[in-house]
């Protein structure tokens, strides 16, 4: 492979560079200074700025900064947007740990809003972080806090429409986002067809989206990293918190296991939509029900100064049942239970002031069990996947000019594409789609270089490997979709499809002034797993399919350029970015393709490529009584498939020319907060019929009436536009006793979703009524104006 030779040179260059810097760094006798920056609730403040004498650095996302200093006097000055600065002078004579507590400026000024870090000085472009406190203030449908919904208010991050689960980031598909919960990939981050995400607001600390310039430590998905960090429990005292909402309630307990050293946090929630709906419409709902619950647990142990353990657990289940056993016609029953189980253990170790490492082991599982009865026909269908993974990351801070990272990851994938059977009376149809297995591995190195005080370069190389292996067998089909009667057998460990690619990543930051910078990045990403889905919603039955013989890994390349500036001490910030992205081996399904229990899934797929480009503007005000942001994206996303649209390029379904959001938060008084969201987006691109005809004709001889079925005729793919989507939401937060010194604290959240009652279509269709002989366009919308109220408490 030619790419490999090129990357060899890059590796050699990087290694030489690293060696040179390391020898330089290890000369003077030095002491380790570890600084931890936390807020008044002891939650780490990531990306705060530290000035030590005249050197300026950023703390990492966990609020920690470690470096070596020679014996002497130091003045440490720490700033973070929305917090009061902290300053301390020390005389360093041995290895030292310092903890800085930054008090939020809220107590002085008014509301603290957006993140504490400055985008101007951070060499990570196309990234936005939202903290849970910000997310909690914004209005949401039915009062359900949802980090995944809130990030769609950021430029470049789009949802698929009303109540759509998928996130479409810079033109990528919904399966191209690496959704991480404490570093563990989540395969199906949604409940209930995407109405809610699995991330419970009580258990989450923050969420970060990286849309471009993806660092080398992340891989496996093409378009973005959505990094969700769960909250640590309070290491000092016990707390109980929770909320009671219209459709769900939450409860969280946290506290120290060993005071100051270890903590636990367990939070749970359950919906009672079904119970609420039954109160409203008991007759029409009957025995049908739907609920979900989830439990998050986090345990943290500070073993000693240098070692810490963190344990993350998530369990969520959705349960849906539908029963129609009225005597008018055949019985219809349906029951499905699905959900994720995630387990992860991470060991963090600070080996020296220069070197730290993290080692994680993970088990990740998604399962669906369903059963359906229709008259004499029964379907039983189960699918899922299980991952076992290990990952190891090393960070070496050589000196103020160089920080190096290296690491590896390995995942053993086990896919259960569909154990299932159907019966038609006595007849059994057993599908024999065997489990699939795959090795996925990657190793990376990256160097973060301050070439001059104004120029920072992060150069990384990730090398990824994927191998789908036996034991498994494939039923061989011919081009017509007819089985040939042959089966391809693969023995245990025998390779079915093996791929490996280099993934170079570069980002460059050039500080024009202390308040402004320009950034450039290049990212190449490879994705070995594809989500097989034919619809706009995400279904629990959607399958993750590994690359293999016919399915090739998808690849993407993205270049992005941006400008960032801030003023008034970082209170105002402007980010402008442009990107261009190409994607290969994109998968679509043939119209009407059958996904479940299909032995010939590959035969239903078509392969093509995609292009996306756009301009994003993000302007935000971070402090003061009024905070918020304006996000705007001008973009275009296209797909080209030889077997679709006669090979002509067509707009992606979620191509959105204009996408804008306005988020405002205003502190009315010490007791009242008001937040509003306005969103506007160009409508989705749809394929609509261009004509119709009658088929399957018959004739009633007595009544002399024709019998027929209307069939639609389609030509161009996605050449119809849905009407633009726009909506305005409002939320009020009322804190009855903001200054109360009592342990018990509570607040009320009142929301109005879709305040001006716009009928944004969920879907549109054309109703052809063969009896009435009429043709009518219809739109179905889900949410008119929806009020909500939630009561939150903590003690």
């Amino acid at each position, binding site marked *: 492979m030619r790419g490999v030779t090129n990357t060899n040179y890059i590796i050699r260059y990087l290694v030489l560079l690293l060696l040179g810097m390391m020898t330089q760094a290890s000369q003077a006798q030095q002491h380790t200074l570890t600084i931890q920056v936390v807020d008044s609730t002891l939650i780490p403040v990531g990306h705060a700025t530290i000035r030590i004498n005249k050197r300026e650095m950023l703390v990492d996302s966990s609020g920690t900064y470690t470096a070596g200093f020679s014996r002497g006097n130091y003045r440490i000055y720490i700033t973070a947007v929305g917090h009061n600065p902290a300053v301390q002078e020390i005389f360093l004579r041995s290895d030292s740990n310092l903890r800085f507590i930054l008090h939020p400026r809220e107590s002085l000024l008014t509301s603290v809003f957006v993140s504490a870090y400055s985008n101007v000085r951070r060499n990570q472009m196309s990234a936005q972080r939202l903290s849970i406190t910000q997310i909690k203030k914004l209005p949401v449908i039915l009062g359900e806090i949802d980090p995944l919904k809130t990030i769609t208010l950021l430029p470049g991050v789009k949802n698929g429409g009303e109540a759509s689960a998928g996130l479409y980031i810079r033109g990528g598909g919904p399966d191209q986002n690496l959704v991480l919960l404490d570093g563990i990939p989540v395969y199906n981050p949604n409940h209930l067809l995407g109405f809610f995400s699995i991330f419970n607001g009580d258990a989450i600390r923050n969420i970060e989206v990286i849309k471009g310039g993806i660092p080398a430590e992340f891989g496996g998905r093409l378009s973005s990293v959505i990094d969700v960090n769960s909250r640590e429990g309070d290491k000092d005292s016990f707390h109980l918190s929770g909320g009671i909402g219209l459709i769900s309630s939450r409860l969280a307990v946290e506290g120290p296991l060993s005071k100051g050293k270890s903590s636990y946090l367990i939070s749970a929630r359950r919906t009672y939509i079904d119970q609420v709906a039954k109160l409203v419409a008991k007759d029409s709902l009957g025995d049908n029900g739907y609920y979900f619950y989830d439990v998050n647990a986090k345990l943290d142990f500070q073993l000693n100064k240098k070692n810490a353990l963190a344990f993350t657990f998530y369990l969520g289940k959705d349960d849906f049942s539908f029963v129609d056993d009225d005597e008018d016609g055949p019985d219809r029953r349906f029951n499905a239970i699905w959900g994720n189980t995630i387990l992860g253990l991470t060991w963090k170790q600070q080996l020296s002031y220069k070197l730290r490492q993290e080692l994680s082991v993970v088990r990740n599982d998604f399962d669906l069990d369903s059963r359906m009865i229709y008259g004499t026909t029964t379907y039983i269908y189960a699918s899922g996947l299980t991952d076992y993974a290990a990952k190891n990351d090393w960070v070496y801070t050589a000196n103020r000019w160089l920080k190096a990272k290296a690491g590896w990851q390995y995942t053993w994938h086990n896919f259960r594409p569909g154990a299932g059977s159907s019966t038609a009376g006595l007849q059994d149809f057993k599908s024999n789609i065997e489990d699939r297995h795959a090795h996925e591995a990657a190793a990376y190195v990256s160097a973060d270089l301050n070439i001059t005080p104004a120029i920072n370069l992060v150069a990384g190389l990730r090398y990824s490997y994927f191998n789908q292996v036996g034991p498994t067998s494939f039923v061989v089909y011919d081009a017509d979709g007819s089985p040939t009667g042959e089966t391809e057998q693969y023995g245990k460990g025998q390779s079915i499809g093996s791929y490996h690619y280099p993934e170079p990543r570069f980002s460059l930051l050039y500080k024009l002034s202390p308040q402004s910078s320009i950034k450039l990045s290049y990212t190449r990403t490879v994705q070995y797993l594809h989500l097989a889905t034919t619809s706009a919603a995400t279904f629990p039955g959607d399958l993750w399919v590994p690359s293999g013989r016919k399915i090739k890994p998808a690849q993407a390349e993205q270049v992005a350029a941006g400008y960032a500036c801030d003023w008034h001490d970082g209170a105002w910030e402007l980010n402008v970015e442009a990107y261009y992205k190409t994607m290969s081996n994109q998968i679509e399904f043939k119209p*009407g393709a059958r996904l479940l229990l299909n032995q010939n899934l590959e035969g239903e797929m078509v392969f093509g490529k995609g292009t996306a480009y756009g301009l994003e503007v993000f302007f935000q005000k971070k402090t003061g009584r009024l905070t918020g942001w304006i996000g705007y994206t001008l973009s275009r996303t296209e797909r080209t498939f030889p077997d679709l649209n006669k090979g002509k390029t067509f707009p992606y379904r979620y191509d959105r020319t204009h996408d804008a959001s306005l988020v405002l938060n205003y502190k009315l008084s010490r007791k009242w907060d008001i937040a509003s969201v306005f969103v506007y987006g160009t409508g989705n691109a749809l394929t609509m019929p261009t004509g119709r005809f009658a088929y399957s004709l018959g004739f009633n001889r007595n009544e002399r009436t024709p019998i027929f079925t209307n069939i639609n005729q389609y030509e161009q793919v996605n050449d119809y536009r849905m009407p633009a989507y726009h909506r305005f939401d409002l939320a009020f937060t009322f804190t009855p006793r903001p200054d109360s010194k009592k342990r018990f604290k509570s607040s009320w959240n009142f929301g109005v979703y879709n305040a001006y009652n716009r009928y944004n279509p969920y879907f549109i269709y054309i109703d052809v009524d063969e009896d009435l002989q009429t043709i*009518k366009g219809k739109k179905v919308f889900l949410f008119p104006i929806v009020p909500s109220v939630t009561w939150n408490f903590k003690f």
Partner: protein
Amino acid sequence: MKTVLLKRKWMWLAVCLAAVGCERDFEIDLNDGQPQLIVEAYINNEMPLYNYVVLSRSKDFYESGLQNVAVTGAMVTITEGMRMPDNTYQWDGATTVQMKEGRLQQLNNSSLPGFYFDQRLATDSINALMGKPGKSYKLDIEADGKKYSAITELLIPVAIDSLTLGNYYLDKNEDTVYRKARITVHYKDPDTIGNTQLYYWRHWENRNSFGWGALGTNRYTPGTDDLINGQYVDLTLSNGFVIGDTVNYFMSSVERKVYNFWDSFNKARSNGGPFATPVSLQSTISGENVVGCFSGFSLSGKTISIK
């Protein structure tokens, strides 16, 4: 087919959710496509009246009227032949039958524009066109100066061993209550994989109707032996039959391409809702701007009294 049902079960979930939502009329502006010639052609081995060709034209979506726009005066022929081992065909010109529009006594002398029959049905119905299992048939059409053609093969029919009744239930409507039974069909699937079947029946509701479109059929029953190759099959359809009725039940063995067409037809007809993808028919007719299928049906039939 199975897909439709499986997809539909998730739709119920959405429907329940959409209980809060509403529906409104909404003007949808559509582009007009190229007009297509629509071909519906059949050849079978049992019912000579059911060997016919219907030609019609597609229309713009909002054009008035839902019925087919007949294409009349076309030149339509069907020729018998054999498929050779090398997958070429030898056509026997002597067997060419010209299909014509005209009134038939069997159809109450009704005028059926766009329906083309072998006119021997009117005069000499014993010698009218009839499909022979094992033979191939070529359809040629010349309409409005353009030529179209299609080939279908009549497979060796798979015999029905027996039909049995069971799974009784009460079917209640607004003012009627029927006790109904379901039919189970018993047959041996041939050892070779790739057999596909469609099911049709005639019962009291359609006894006085004519045409394949008027017969009863089940859109949801799996019709391939992909998962049951070579087995002895006992297949129960969900459809109910009224007690006291007599049902003529047909199992039609079809080529894969014909099965694929009717499978796409079943998907296309049930298309709608939030999760629907636009489905085009898997046409088997060659030519420009043409859609349709020449369906060779190898029938094996049985009659059963519903008790």
